[in-house]
């Protein structure tokens, strides 16, 4: 049974930590996701960001979009940099060199920086029990460099390095299941979220923030530029991804899986694909194949979740 709850926008901080003036594309849902997440983390937060869209739109020397302490070192190492920051804070507080207080260390990377090049550093940081939150802002390709496929690009999608052609349907591999990989590290908290569902996102960020030890948030961040959709439809497509079961909203708290939103009956995948330039070339057969796998994975997920 679906429960409805009423939440007020004013329950959430008015403070902004990603301020206006950044260079994100029109309609970018990634900066929106991050902006909302940072509202919950609040001012006692340090951000370690990987190279990628959010880094490049925010910090052209000598300007910055961040009113929080922020560091960018390289592409594949946000989790390792965060480990170093967390270590420094711990020892400096232990030695009474800085006042003891709770400071959130948050690493942020895109899907390429997480599921491809940054996977090793992330695994290391999760395995070590680093007290931090890792946010993967998943826009399903290397958008910053011009829409190249990543291991998080969905099956069939057209990107500049997975072009459809006589011998190609587009992306030939199924989207890597990063949240499941994070769960396999036995960390206390893993969740998926989407800024199209802001209150769900708020509550998950809050849980991640309160977690002692590593927490992992995987946030679907619709990219109008890369998905080839009109710039005013990012929120709608985020909702469609969730309602089609393509990107389910769930959390795994101390190993216990729970759906945070049940979209059943699922919207057909073809309704989600409709209007997205990246899926335009797909034949009905391929769409049917994808629908079959989405249904199967949805049932599997439901099976893992507590009723």
């Amino acid at each position, binding site marked *: 049974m679906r429960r409805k709850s009423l939440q007020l926008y004013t329950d959430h901080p008015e403070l902004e930590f990603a301020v206006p003036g950044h260079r994100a594309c029109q309609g970018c849902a990634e900066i929106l996701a991050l902006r909302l997440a940072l509202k919950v983390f609040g001012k006692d937060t340090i951000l370690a960001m990987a190279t990628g869209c959010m880094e490049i739109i925010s910090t052209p020397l000598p300007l910055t979009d961040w009113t929080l302490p922020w560091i960018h070192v390289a592409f594949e190492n946000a989790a390792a940099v965060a480990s170093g920051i967390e*270590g420094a804070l711990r020892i400096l507080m232990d030695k009474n060199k800085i006042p003891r207080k709770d400071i959130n260390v948050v690493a942020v990377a895109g899907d390429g920086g997480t599921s491809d090049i940054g996977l090793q550093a992330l695994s*290391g940081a999760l395995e070590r029990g680093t007290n931090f939150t890792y946010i993967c802002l998943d826009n399903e390709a290397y958008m910053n460099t011009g829409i190249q496929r990543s291991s998080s690009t969905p099956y069939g999608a057209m990107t500049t390095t997975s072009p459809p052609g006589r011998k190609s349907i587009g992306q030939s591999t199924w989207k890597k299941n990063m949240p499941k990989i994070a769960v396999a590290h036995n960390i206390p908290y893993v969740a998926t979220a989407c800024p199209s569902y802001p209150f769900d996102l708020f509550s998950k960020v809050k849980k991640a923030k309160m977690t002692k030890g590593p927490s992992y948030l995987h946030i679907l961040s619709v990219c109008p530029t890369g998905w080839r959709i009109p710039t005013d439809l990012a929120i709608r497509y985020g909702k469609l991804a969730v309602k089609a079961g393509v990107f389910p909203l769930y959390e795994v708290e101390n190993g216990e899986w729970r759906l945070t939103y049940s979209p059943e009956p699922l919207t057909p995948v073809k309704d989600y694909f409709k209007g997205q330039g990246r899926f335009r070339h797909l034949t009905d057969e391929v769409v049917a194949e994808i629908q079959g796998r989405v249904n199967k994975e949805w049932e599997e997920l439901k099976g893992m979740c507590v009723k």
Partner: protein
Amino acid sequence: MKKGIEVSIAASVAAKLARVEVIAAYPITPQTHIVEHLSDLVANGELDAVYINVESEHSAMSACCGASAGGARTFTSTSAQGLELMHEILFIASGMRLPIVMATVNRALSSPLSIWGDHSDVMAARDTGWIMLFCENGQEVVDSIIMAFRIAEDRRILLPVMVNLDGFSLSHVIEPIEFPSQEEVDKFLPAYSPLYTLHPDKPVTMGAYAMPELYTEAKYAQEMAIVNSRPVIAQVMEEFGKSFGRSYKPVETYNIDKADFVFIALGAVSENIKTAIDALKEEGKEAGLISLRLYRPFPAEELIAVLANKKKAAVIERVMPGGAMNSPLYNEVASLVHANNMNLSVQNYVLGLGGRDAHPEEFMEIFRSVDTKQPLRKDMNFTVIGVRA
């Protein structure tokens, strides 16, 4: 009082004396004894530090960047493949002006795989914007690590420092070493007081990107920082001498006053060269040694001063040129000679690769044959000692 101790262990004791606060490291031969002993010191509560067991050297240097930016005195150590894996981040650490100190236990690069010592690792990292010190013996390793933090954290410098020690031939030998007391070190090296840190009370942005309008200026400012660090480094070395009674200079010399001929070398091989020089002296022949303790920034002025009136020099290197005309140190010495119109004939010798011993007799032979030396080919000026070609 001197104590017989393995140089690797001594290096970790030096890091402890420097009161390092974060260590992020990944084990690799021949660096392992350093990180093992540091782990012990942290585990036993003898060193109040956070030890981060990272999953690679790339993450080691990345975590060091985070820790240093967070305001902690940060130390790591690596060798060979590990240094190459962190190569990308070496540039970022120096570009972001993070005063990390790293002990690099010099080892050959694969392929073929070799765990043994030479300088191919550090030479591939020589232009990463790090200050680089080389050590001849264990005492220098200890003293250099302590000095390295003073140099790195100096507000006029703020750059990472690499302390190089030769794998096995230095790292794994037991030497008599004198350790300064903690009080003396604390006096020489006060607690790290960073200029900027990542903290919510004073938010800063670190690691912004630069458009073409600013990149050159940013890199120029960094270059000036390392170039201008030279007198400060000399000053720190001098002050170290006053505090601890062991004085160091960016460029060390041995028996150069009477000699027309000098060897120019880096690291522990210098001690073997000194043995050769002593043996030559007994034959009534004079050869000198110029050993570069400081390699980056390149101590040009100091080198010009000690090369004055010298006629011949043999640059000894533990690295293949890799397709260059000569090995790296030779190229720099040659460019110094050219730029200053010095009347000095310089030859390039490659030896001690992949842990092969460099015997004093070989240096004596170099001395004897320097006038008649034939290069391998016309377009190459280097000679590989003892190679079975």
